[in-house]
């Protein structure tokens, strides 16, 4: 039994925001994005979101039991990981693979580091990276949005039995705008990208909706607005530079900003508090780096999408960035050197 000690030393006042409240609001902000995914992709998306979230929460619970800890389910962080992870997967992703992704996200991405607050990487992206490597075929099968029978029947791949290969997506498959550009040289209109009526992962299709939800979080101070701003700014700058040099070959910065998972990644993943730096300058450097890496991976990497790896790389650089950008202490002439080795 934990001993409860009431501290009676100053400050005797406390701001009202709590961890659970912050996390709960992130969940609220994610719900419209989830709802839109279900509207676009039907029951498959709903099953996917529910499966992944349940897998994450169950894994968190399991590790709580194993480590005799209590109460971390009530902080909603596992729910956020589940929702975010589901939103990054293709809508027709086999459910059993989705459950594996959820397990890996919490087990390897979070619990192994010591639970909430200690993870170096965004847990949702750890899960996503795992299934990207484990099931490369399944994770690149995208479907068209708004199919007529979407609320009545599953996308065939969704119900693939465990340890069997998913069926081919005949009649359903569709390339993402990023894939269209990268492999076929076709540009999707910015309007379609903005409203989200395009193929893609479950929750990354509507830039407008994601921005609106992000704005809510930023206004209520539940998210550091500087991180999405820096990521999007970094991506726009890098893309703008390429476009300026060779407008015939490279897409416009607008296309880069609104296509693929950049918006979802910038607003909901790069801004993950635990895995991002906390220093004032560090936040900007971290965001710009992710934006830059996203565009570079998209243009020169083997995959059509680069946000996931860009954020994971950004997370890995976080401690270093934080160490180099320690704030100056009042009255000190120089910035501290090497004081911030995170252990």
């Amino acid at each position, binding site marked *: 039994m934990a001993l409860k000690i*009431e*501290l*009676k*030393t*100053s*400050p*005797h*006042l*406390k*701001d*009202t*925001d*709590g*961890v659970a*409240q*912050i996390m709960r609001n992130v969940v609220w902000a994610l719900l419209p994005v989830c709802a839109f995914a279900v509207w676009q992709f039907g029951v498959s998306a709903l099953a996917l979101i529910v499966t992944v979230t349940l897998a994450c929460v169950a894994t968190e619970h399991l590790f709580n039991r194993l480590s005799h800890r209590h*109460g*971390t389910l009530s*902080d909603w*962080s596992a729910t956020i990981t589940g929702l975010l992870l589901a939103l990054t997967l293709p809508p027709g992703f086999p459910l059993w693979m989705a459950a594996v992704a959820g397990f890996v996200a919490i087990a390897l991405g979070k619990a192994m580091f010591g*639970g*909430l*607050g*200690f993870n170096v990487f965004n847990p949702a992206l750890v899960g996503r990276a795992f299934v990207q490597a484990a099931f490369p075929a399944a994770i690149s099968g995208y479907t068209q949005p708004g199919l007529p029978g979407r609320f009545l029947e599953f996308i065939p791949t969704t119900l693939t039995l465990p340890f069997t290969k998913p069926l081919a997506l005949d009649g359903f498959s569709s390339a993402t705008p990023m894939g269209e550009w990268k492999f076929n040289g076709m540009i999707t209109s910015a309007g379609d990208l903005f409203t989200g009526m395009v193929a893609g992962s479950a929750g990354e299709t509507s830039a407008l909706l994601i921005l609106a939800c992000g704005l809510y979080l930023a206004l209520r101070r539940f998210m*550091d607005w500087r991180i999405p701003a820096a990521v999007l700014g970094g991506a726009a700058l890098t893309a703008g530079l390429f476009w300026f040099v060779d407008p015939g070959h490279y897409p416009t910065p607008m296309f880069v900003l609104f296509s693929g998972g950049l918006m979802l990644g910038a607003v909901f993943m790069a801004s993950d*508090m*635990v*895995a*991002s*730096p*906390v*220093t*004032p300058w560090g*936040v900007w450097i971290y965001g710009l780096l992710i934006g830059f890496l996203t565009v570079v991976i998209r243009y020169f990497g083997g995959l059509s999408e680069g946000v996931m790896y860009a954020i994971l790389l950004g997370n890995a650089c976080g401690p270093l960035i934080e160490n180099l950008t*320690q*704030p*100056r*202490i*009042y*009255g*000190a002439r120089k910035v*501290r050197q090497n*004081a*911030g080795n*995170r*252990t």
Partner: protein
Amino acid sequence: MILRLFRIRGGVHPPEHKHPTASRPIEACPLPARLYVPLQQHIGAPAEPVVQVGEKVLKGQLIGHAQGPVSAPVHAPTSGTVTTIAPHAAPHPSGLPVVCVTIEPDGEDRWESAPAETDPFLLTPREIGERVAAAGIVGMGGAAFPSAVKLGAATRTPIHTLIINGGECEPYLTCDDRLMRERAVEVIDGVRIMLHGTQATRALIAIEENKPSAIRELKRAARIDERVMVVRIPALYPMGSEKHMIQTLTGRELPPGRLPADLGLIVHNVATAFAVHRAVRFGRPLISRIVTVGGGALREPRNREVLIGTPIEDLVECCGGFAEEPARLLMGGPMMGQVIPWNAPVVKGTSGVIALTREEIHIGETRACIRCGRCVSACPVGLMPLEMASRIRADQFDGAVDHGLNDCISCGSCAFVCPASIPLVQFFNFAKGELVARKTAQDKSQVLKLMAEQRQARLEREAREKAEAAARKKAEREAAKRAEQEAAARETGT
């Protein structure tokens, strides 16, 4: 003329809760049945009692003599009889007693001397310092550092700017606000006396923008002297911190280990200025002060002019008592104030007595740090509270010091904003105390080691001297023997 202001880093905006007391005038408090006047109400050495049990004292009479260079005398707040000179609960969370002179008032409230006005501007700066020291004036913002010592610094280093702190950035507290609104002329007079006493060329009275009436009143009163300027500063906690007030007004940062006087500055509280006015112009010692009695648990929150030594109990009673049982009873504001025992008296540094309800405190369950970085944004010193706390938790005090533990001003902004309810500033205060304790223990062991070494050296020296003396004696004996033998040989030879 408009003074350019400078931004400070970080800071927080706690809910102000100033309205209940700010809108009502200062009221007096009835004489309590007993006054407990502590002999130590200031930083430095305690005063030495100069009265005896059973002695009759008059209002303003010296009852405790200042001891040492940093100390302050204590005076009788009213006329009456000294009943005891014994330890009594001090306004400190430990509840440890401090020696108090207990006075039973006779109800006549008779002054020791008739009022006499002096023109302070005919006095020399040195005389002003002496009068301030004799009146027992200490910093009234809460730190209670003897004011005369600060004023005296001006005789060693030239002071160009006198800063008067009317920030009052702590929530609930309005005693300075009311003082400035109701006694602006007296405050300005005190400021001008301090200007004369320090020979500074200007005085800046800094008041937070959330006190527009105080700003207006003081501006009006300050018209008589163009050296005195009232400055409206942003309302931000901890604006009242000396370091941050200096930065806001001058753009300069106080280097570590330096005093404001090193930059030609001196900072005093508005209430101190008022006390200086009374002491120097009218020869009245510091025996009362204005205290904000507030908090949600009180029935009638008010500003009261209270005699030093009044028990908190009586003070609360004269404010209608409690509407509900307070979860915490504090001296000072809620951000940096301390929990005090119920029977402790009001002292010179008591700016407020705040009784908070459970809802007002928001005690949250401590959770894991989610690295949200709010503490980093809130820290006015530029520290990384989350990193310091994780070091201290792991008992790595040196690591915490590397992160700037010693620069922490204990303002509590970090703990206020922490959504995980981690007791950040409490960790830092603990670590600071622990470091002092370790240093003391280390010094002690070094002294012991030195003593042991010296003893060893002494024993060795003594042994050596003994041996040498023995050898010398032996040699002498042998020489004598030889001389004897030689003499005998010579005798036999002749």
